[in-house]
């Protein structure tokens, strides 16, 4: 970690920090909606880096990641809303949500992690759907989740009396609600980036990579592959749970709709498209994939008007079409992702002859 302190990296860090601080104010000039889009981009960075531990580091294909996000979101929604009349503080619900998601991860992982590749993908996919369907139907006979209507009026994050919703003045600067969440999310994202970086270059990170490379050889040198896979699963799930809690608090509303399969696929796409296992790549993937649909939302209709004088194709379907096309093109021309790690790039290169 010493090389972080070299003048060049210090300058880089200062620049990035300055840009991150300035961003919510710049975006706010275009309206708070832009700050919210940025917030979701950062939330996705957090989620994608959580999933990166599972997919990128341990090499486990998890298609139900959103389920853990749902567990965290509903934990917050149920314990901090008028639904049950419970209003627990952040420091209690956020760890609890992470813990519940972690337990869900272990419960799902322990019987299934023996499965390989595509089989694991199917099971996790099923799990994700089951959780969503549960949330949808747990409103009768006893109303727990309020079914498809979801839960409203969820408490915002509030730390030591400081509420993250509504605007307030700090050090003479007026911050809107979304702007305050922005800084909270950036702090959390930095945390998950540090965790990812440190894990990757640790004994555990090396063991994960070894399992990914050759599971039998990993076992033969004494790596407990089952426990390590479970560990990756549980850690990824915990981060999903934390993200879910923040999501519920930020939105003030959750419903099963937010936790559909397409969301799991989207987060996985961020990891893969950015560059699996490579932290800067995953961040890039998450930012691009969360912003691109929004940009298209605002761009598709005006561009059609400009070109054809009228709106020919429903903007919503065209948006997804362009989005899908972009994904296909990236995977076709950059199979290792937009910004792969140097190692991964080499992995996809043909073997050297005679090597």
């Amino acid at each position, binding site marked *: 970690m010493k090389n972080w302190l070299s003048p060049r990296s210090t300058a880089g860090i200062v620049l990035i920090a300055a840009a991150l601080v300035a961003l919510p104010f710049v975006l706010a000039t275009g309206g708070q909606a832009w700050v919210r889009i940025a917030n979701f981009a950062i939330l996705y960075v957090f989620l994608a880096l959580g999933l990166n531990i599972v997919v990128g580091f341990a090499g486990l294909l998890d298609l139900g990641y959103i389920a853990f996000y749902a567990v965290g979101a509903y934990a917050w929604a149920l314990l901090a809303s008028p639904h049950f009349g419970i209003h627990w503080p952040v420091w209690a619900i956020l760890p609890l949500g992470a813990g519940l998601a972690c337990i869900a991860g272990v419960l799902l992982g322990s019987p299934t992690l023996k499965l390989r590749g595509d089989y694991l993908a199917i099971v996790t996919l099923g799990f994700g759907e089951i959780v969503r369907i549960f949330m949808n139907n747990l409103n009768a006979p006893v109303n727990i989740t309020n079914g498809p209507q979801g839960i409203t009026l969820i408490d915002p994050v509030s730390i030591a009396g400081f509420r993250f919703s509504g605007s307030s003045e700090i050090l003479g600067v007026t911050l809107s609600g979304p702007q305050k969440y922005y800084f909270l999310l950036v702090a959390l994202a930095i945390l998950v980036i540090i965790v990812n970086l*440190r894990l990757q270059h*640790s004994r555990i990170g090396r063991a994960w*990579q070894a399992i990914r*490379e050759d599971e039998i050889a990993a*076992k*033969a*040198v004494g790596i407990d592959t089952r426990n390590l896979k479970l560990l990756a699963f549980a850690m990824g799930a915990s981060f999903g749970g934390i993200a879910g809690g923040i999501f519920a608090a930020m939105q003030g509303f959750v419903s099963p709709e937010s936790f559909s399969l397409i969301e799991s696929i989207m987060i996985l796409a961020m990891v893969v498209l950015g560059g699996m296992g490579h932290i800067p790549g995953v961040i890039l993937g998450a930012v691009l994939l969360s912003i691109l649909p929004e940009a298209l939302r605002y761009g598709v209709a005006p561009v059609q008007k400009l070109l054809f004088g009228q709106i020919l194709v429903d903007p919503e379907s065209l948006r997804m079409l362009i989005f899908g096309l972009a994904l296909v093109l990236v995977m076709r021309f950059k199979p290792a992702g937009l910004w792969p790690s140097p190692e991964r790039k080499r*992995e996809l290169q043909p073997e*050297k002859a005679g090597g």
Partner: protein
Amino acid sequence: MAETLLAATAVAKHFGGVKALRDVSLTIRSGEVYGLIGPNGAGKTTFFNCLTGLYVPDGGGFEFAGAPLVADAPQQAAARGIARTFQNIRLFGNMTALENVMVGRHVRTRAGVIGAMLQTAATRAEEAAIRQKAIDLLHYVRIEDRADDLARNLSYGDQRRLEIARALATEPKLLCLDEPAAGMNATETEALRDLIDGIRRDGTTVLLIEHDVKLVMGLCDRVAVLDYGALVIEDVPAVVQKDPRVIEAYLGA
């Protein structure tokens, strides 16, 4: 006489109709190089796989360093002190040579997730020790100049050496080598001979599967011969070499 390190008792393994191992019993003594030879398909690799927990034997079992080995638990076998290489090299191809050996330290080190995240002093000290030990082992097998190359880009002979270094990183009492000289030229084989000799001198017992009869006979303290899954003979090389059953097994009846 030296004490027994490994005792295999009536180990049996079959795949459908194929009896790969038929009640194989043998003993390996501490400090020796023990050769395991036999024609293709005799069951040598299957014996390794049973010993290292990759296969569950259908009968019999192993006693290692005074206690039975649990079947079906490769990580436990490694922890107890059994390390191996593979006939068809199994390195972590996209990791560097150094990282491959560092992975071998996994079973002798402790640092967990919390330590890694907090970068505690203990974790950093352990990490430095892992790296140093791995560098030392690369020197030991004489491929230190390839430390930062990806394992899959190493030459065949260097890959075999790297696999040995990775196995040694687990601090084994018993090192099992599955045809380490396969595909090596005469010079490389000679260097391998010296390496194995050195490993024995440094106190590690070696179990060696090898087809190169000259290498086996010159290096091993004792040799066992397998044929069609059954043990034919277990004795010193001079006796084994002259045994008519061995000659028949090799020349084919």
